[in-house]
């Protein structure tokens, strides 16, 4: 079942006798899917065009697919803001540290859960799975983190979401699919559990660990709310919170009604576009390479439930 993703599709027999109706359908289908692609990509193109345009043209509502009045002023402005780079570095640090912690904890627990002979295994699985459907909620979590003294420290960002139960189940499924003979042989040779995990199991699990690293890294890279909630000082923010404050400032000004300084708001609009582009860029750059690992990871988890 695990190899599901690589299996070729069971092809529907395509007789030569395609009806006229089916040929019409093929054309319509092509049009619909093209529309899906356009609708998905359009916002990206639009944002890039806005980020490269000058403000006068944006205000005039002329910027759509192509930059109007091409200039890089806004890029220079954003990249010359030291806080932007501080926050960008924070994102990288948080992502690396959080992913490392997550991988260690998830791997250990998933390995334990994958041992069918272990007494109390059902309870250990239950403890994890129950948290998928019931959680303490925002306020008790906040109270806990505060009273642990973790506010305004990196730990508030990297620890509270260290184990994702879905990822845990994916890993557990993978460990269960490994042949037990190797581990048994290693045990006979006198290797203890830690040795088996480190020297036998992990080298066989490089692919799944890579997938898990990607799962966690992308989710930590994208997260903002934990940081927003627990960090009060600007120099601790990840770049997502930097962007959030930028857009929140803009709506605040607009919803206040009488906008005194229209230029400032518009400048902010260009800056927003630039910040969006710069924050999205790393994801877009690695996306083509990581996408298939994600897909296979999702299916691995789904098949084993």
């Amino acid at each position, binding site marked *: 079942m695990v190899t599901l993703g690589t299996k070729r599709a069971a092809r529907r*027999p395509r007789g030569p006798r395609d009806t006229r109706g089916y040929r019409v359908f093929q054309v319509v289908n092509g049009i619909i899917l093209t529309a899906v692609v356009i609708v998905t990509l359009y916002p990206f193109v639009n944002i890039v065009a806005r980020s490269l345009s000058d403000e006068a043209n944006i205000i005039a509502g002329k910027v759509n697919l192509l930059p109007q009045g091409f200039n890089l002023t806004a890029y220079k402005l954003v990249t010359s803001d030291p806080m932007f780079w501080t926050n960008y570095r924070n994102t990288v640090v948080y992502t690396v540290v959080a992913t490392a912690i997550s991988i260690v904890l998830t791997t250990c627990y998933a390995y*334990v859960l994958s041992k069918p002979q272990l007494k109390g295994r059902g309870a250990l699985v239950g403890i994890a799975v129950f948290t998928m459907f019931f*959680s303490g909620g925002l306020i008790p979590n906040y109270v806990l983190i505060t009273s642990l003294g973790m506010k305004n420290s990196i730990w508030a960002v990297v620890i509270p979401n260290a184990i994702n139960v879905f990822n845990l189940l994916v890993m557990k499924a993978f460990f269960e699919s490994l042949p037990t003979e190797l581990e048994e042989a290693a045990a006979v040779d006198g290797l203890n*559990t830690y040795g088996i995990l480190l020297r036998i199991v992990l080298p066989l699990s490089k692919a799944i660990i890579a997938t898990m690293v990607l799962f966690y890294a992308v989710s930590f890279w994208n997260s903002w709310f934990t940081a927003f909630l627990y960090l009060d000082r600007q120099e601790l923010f990840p770049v997502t919170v930097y962007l959030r404050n930028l857009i929140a400032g803009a709506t605040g000004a607009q919803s206040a009604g009488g906008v005194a300084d229209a230029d400032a708001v518009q400048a902010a609009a260009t800056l*927003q576009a630039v910040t*969006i582009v710069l924050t999205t860029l790393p994801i877009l750059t690695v996306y083509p390479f990581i996408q298939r690992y994600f897909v296979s990871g999702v299916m691995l988890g789904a098949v084993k*439930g």
Partner: protein
Amino acid sequence: MTSETLRPPETGEPAPVAPAPRVRPRRRGWRQAVRRDWQLYSLAVLPLLFFLVFRYLPMLGNVIAFRRFQPGGSIFGEYWVGLRYFRMFFADPTFWQVFTNTLVLGALTLLFCFPLPIVLALLLNEVRTRKLKRFVQSVSYLPHFLSIVIVAAMVMQLLAMDGAVNQLVRATGGDGVPFLQRAEWFRTIYVSSEVWQTVGWGTILYLAALTTIDGNLYEAARIDGANRWRQTWHVTLPGIRPTMVTLLILNIGTFMAVGFEKILLLYNPLTYPTADVISTYLYRMGFESSNFSYAAAIGLFEAVIGLVLVLTANLISRRTVGTSLW
């Protein structure tokens, strides 16, 4: 995620089943288990500590919903006040407004974000050119990888007075609309951005399920004179039904927790009448009005409804179609 693969216990696959000598007498004591497997147990200590402290302690922390809480005091509150905070929010008209908003947004999300991936998967399944299919898939997965902040920022840019949508409105002779300041537009904005971000990714499991359908079934259906449409109806859809049911249950489980983060980013006081949901309301109660116990009571209410919804959906689906999560 089909019932077939979920049902059997973890040893369901033939390969990893331990050979006979491995099977020991069933009733082993804990002492013996610990002596034999203590190294395994030791690996579970840190993760267990994580779950107990960061998942189960907050669950217990919900007792502040029944107790007077003082910031800086005990995390379990000071003294009992019984159901005071629950009575408070049941009598609070704003609560019922955000409750209704939650149900409406949850229902709309379910209505669009559940079936659309199925439709897209079926359409993709009919594409004959492999490359084209893969290209459409890759593009449609992309939004899933974006931070919710980026999605919200994009929505704001597109809907700004000078944004793309208003350009279209003006081109067709209308006047610009400040969409994000209009309560009547919020639901449309929320649901369509949700569709934009989730539909492509949602097709993955269906496409996987589609590959497992036996080709002979289509052959048989064709011989029986079924056209493409009837083949889809009688073979394809029943083939992916377990996946549909499982995802439906999971969707229902997140029904109450409708996109808290996105709403927090996109709403403003002008759109509260339609945008404010339970989670955002309790966020403001907790962090803007510093009424922690009141907010915790609302949160507990929401979490319990969520749990009841999952359990009910699971039970119903087990009784009626024989598919369940556990």
